[in-house]
């Protein structure tokens, strides 16, 4: 067995170690340790990706001495490796870009705690990506939730703590339903490992035995994960959480945490319940409807919003709606589009959050649009970055947003039943996006005599560098989408 096969396990355990050790370190040391760990994890994930591409098949890794149905297992394929690589990259960039704000906003005694949260968050994300065992998934979902809560409330104002509370409540509802679903699934199949559950569920679906409990279980799992990833009616905690936490947290939360749950849902769709069974039960139509509703409502409340960070947060409600709409369409193409949208949204949204924080710095720390007027001239790189993000969101060709919209539309026209609602809602939400993002871009480029000083690019080298990387990532996703889509398709084929 090739040594690279150990890397998934190693990267998870390494992150956990980083968390444990950071709790005994001072803030600075914890920061460096964390940076080191992130880099190593990125390299390992790249190796895993390359290895799986080379061998052309996924591999399972037994955690311990005991093989499949008895011991824990993790599993790595192209999609897993790619996701792990992407997550760690986004996390590195967000952390570097938000470093200065972090030093301002987090009190130095508790800095190491912040990095504990980051490390364990990454470990849980990796575990969610790699795991092959539902119960392990549950445990790491909990870790994910708690560390995300820590990220929200590390900056201690009334807003963030209230937001953290709301977030915890929603997530607890979600994990309760998820756990109950897992238990019922175990009761019907007698397994916790994904392959075995899949096999048994196929048998049950054919024999028609336990039909009603199976449907209820699928419903509970889907709805639970939807709640946790802030699908439309359950998004009340989101604007405060993203709008007032420190900027790296906002970027990481919006681009990674919810995506972790969505990826788990993807695994459950493909590897636990099975594509046909889950779309045979009409459960996914619920997701579809809520996704559509989210696309509209999120954008509407974003238009009403008068605070740039909250506006971006609401727009990510809309984007999550896109992803669930893709799942709800229920075709392979649509799922590919959703996965691509996960990537493009992660890249764009973190870019938007961080550049917005740069603009806010250039406007005396006020997040109101009236003060942001002309901030694009005061902090040039942030202005450019924000415009790029906005254009990508609006769906200008050459940027990632356009590609994902195109993919969704192409998927929609293949599904004649849901074609019209999808296309219409897609068009409406795109126009709404255009309205609020273009409004913002025009405003930040409207020259005014402002008392706030100009922030030269030299002062924030790291920030500028991170911005450039994000822009490059975005354009890469926009231009070389074909390559990415091929990767996603191979990964999904390895799933089944």
């Amino acid at each position, binding site marked *: 067995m090739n040594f690279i096969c150990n890397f998934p396990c190693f990267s998870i355990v390494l992150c956990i170690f980083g968390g444990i050790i950071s*709790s005994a370190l001072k803030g600075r040391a914890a920061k460096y340790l964390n940076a080191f760990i992130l880099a190593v994890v990125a390299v390992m994930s790249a190796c895993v990706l390359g290895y799986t591409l080379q061998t052309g098949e996924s591999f399972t890794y037994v955690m311990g001495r005991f093989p499949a149905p008895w*011991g824990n297992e993790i599993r790595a394929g192209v999609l897993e490796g790619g996701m792990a690589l992407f997550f760690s990259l986004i996390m590195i960039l967000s952390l570097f870009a938000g470093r200065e704000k972090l030093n301002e906003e987090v009190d130095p005694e508790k800095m190491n705690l912040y990095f504990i949260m980051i490390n364990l968050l990454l470990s849980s994300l990796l575990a969610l990506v790699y795991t092959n065992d539902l*119960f392990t998934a549950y*445990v790491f979902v909990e870790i994910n939730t708690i560390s995300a809560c820590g990220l929200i*409330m590390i900056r201690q104002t009334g807003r963030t703590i209230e937001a953290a509370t709301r977030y915890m409540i929603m997530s607890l509802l979600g994990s309760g339903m998820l756990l109950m679903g897992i238990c019922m699934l175990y009761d019907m199949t*007698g397994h916790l490992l994904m392959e075995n559950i899949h096999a048994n569920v196929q048998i049950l679906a054919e024999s028609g035995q*336990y039909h009603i409990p199976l449907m209820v279980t699928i419903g509970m799992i889907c709805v639970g994960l939807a709640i946790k990833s802030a699908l439309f009616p359950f998004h009340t905690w989101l604007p405060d959480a993203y709008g007032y936490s420190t900027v790296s947290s906002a970027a990481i939360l919006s681009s990674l945490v919810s995506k972790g749950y969505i990826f788990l849902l993807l695994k459950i769709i493909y590897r636990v319940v099975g594509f046909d069974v889950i779309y045979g039960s009409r459960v996914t139509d619920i997701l579809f409807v809520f996704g559509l509703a989210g696309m509209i409502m999120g954008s509407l409340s974003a238009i009403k919003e008068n605070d740039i960070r909250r506006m971006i947060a609401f727009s990510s409600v809309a984007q999550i709606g896109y992803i669930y709409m893709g799942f709800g369409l229920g075709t392979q193409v649509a799922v590919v589009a959703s996965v691509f949208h996960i990537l493009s949204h992660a890249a764009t949204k973190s870019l938007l959050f961080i550049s917005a924080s740069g603009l806010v710095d250039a406007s005396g720390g006020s997040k109101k649009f009236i003060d942001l007027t002309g901030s694009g001239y005061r902090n040039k790189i942030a202005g450019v970055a924000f415009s790029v993000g906005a254009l990508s969101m609006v769906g200008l060709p050459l940027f990632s947003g356009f590609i994902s919209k195109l993919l969704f539309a192409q998927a929609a026209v293949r599904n004649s039943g849901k074609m019209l609602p999808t296309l219409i809602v897609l068009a409406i939400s795109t126009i709404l996006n255009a309205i609020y993002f273009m409004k913002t871009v025009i405003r930040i480029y409207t020259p005014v005599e402002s008392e706030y000083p100009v922030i030269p690019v030299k002062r924030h080298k790291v920030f500028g560098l991170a911005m450039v990387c994000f822009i490059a990532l975005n354009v890469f996703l926009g231009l070389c989408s074909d390559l990415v889509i091929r990767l996603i398709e191979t990964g999904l084929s390895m799933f089944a």
Partner: protein
Amino acid sequence: MSEKKTHKQKFSEWFYGENDPFVAAMPVQEQKEHQVDEKTLQEYEKERAERHEKVFDIAHNGKIRAFRRSYRVLGVMMCLLMISILLLAVSYLPRTGNPANPDNNEVSRVYIENGLQDTGAVNVVAGMILSYRAFDTFGETNVLFIATCCVMILLMLDEKALHTSGLSNDRFYEPKNDWILQKIAKILVPIIFVFGIYVMLNGHISPGGGFSGGAILGAGMILYVNAFGFKKTQKFFNETVYKVIKVGALCIYGVLITYFFFMGANGLNNHIPLGIPGHILSAGLILPIDVLVGLEVACTMYAFYALFRRGGL
């Protein structure tokens, strides 16, 4: 609403948790930004009073009343709907206690039949969670760890703040040096400790294990603190000790488990003897891991209590 309250008002206050037993008498010190701007604080107070006059006065504000009614009705209906769906599902699930159920399959059979030989643990459950499904348990321990970290973020106060704010006297709300409590604690605490250690060490041959044993230890320490106060406790258990034990335990646990994973996954035989089943020194990795988990859990329990109590260990 100073005059005498009717039962209805009392009930509604109880129902919405409005009445506030000790407004000014919170044992934990107030938060920084809350202290700095006195003016805004007064504003909150005033607004809160007004709100109590206008908004939350159920008697006069018809809209709120209607909203709350509908909210309650909605809640109940939702609850009933969910329960009925779940009951429907349950009614189709396999019968309880039936040996032919799908969950009594080869998995559990192998756990029971080969568990002793595979793990060396008489307690099959302990063998299962610490050796077959070790990864889950490792994650679970980290859930505890990260939860304590979060509580620290929220409630930890640095030492000088503790001393300056006069909260170092943490027993302000309780009888000083309660004689009965101290005497009983003197007798009970050692027994509890011994029992906890016993449960921890026998995790693999009898019911119990790291988590339960650790919880018992933690309970003992909490009792000790209640009886004798933090000053005496800190003589033998302060923050540094806590950190050393916690980080040490977790790190060793991590190293052991990684060794176990690596050896197992790459098909190398690990050199840890399983020993004779039923003896204390047996079951390979399970015993040390139990001890480590126990320490971790004990620390966590105590840390929760201490942090809630006075915002510091």
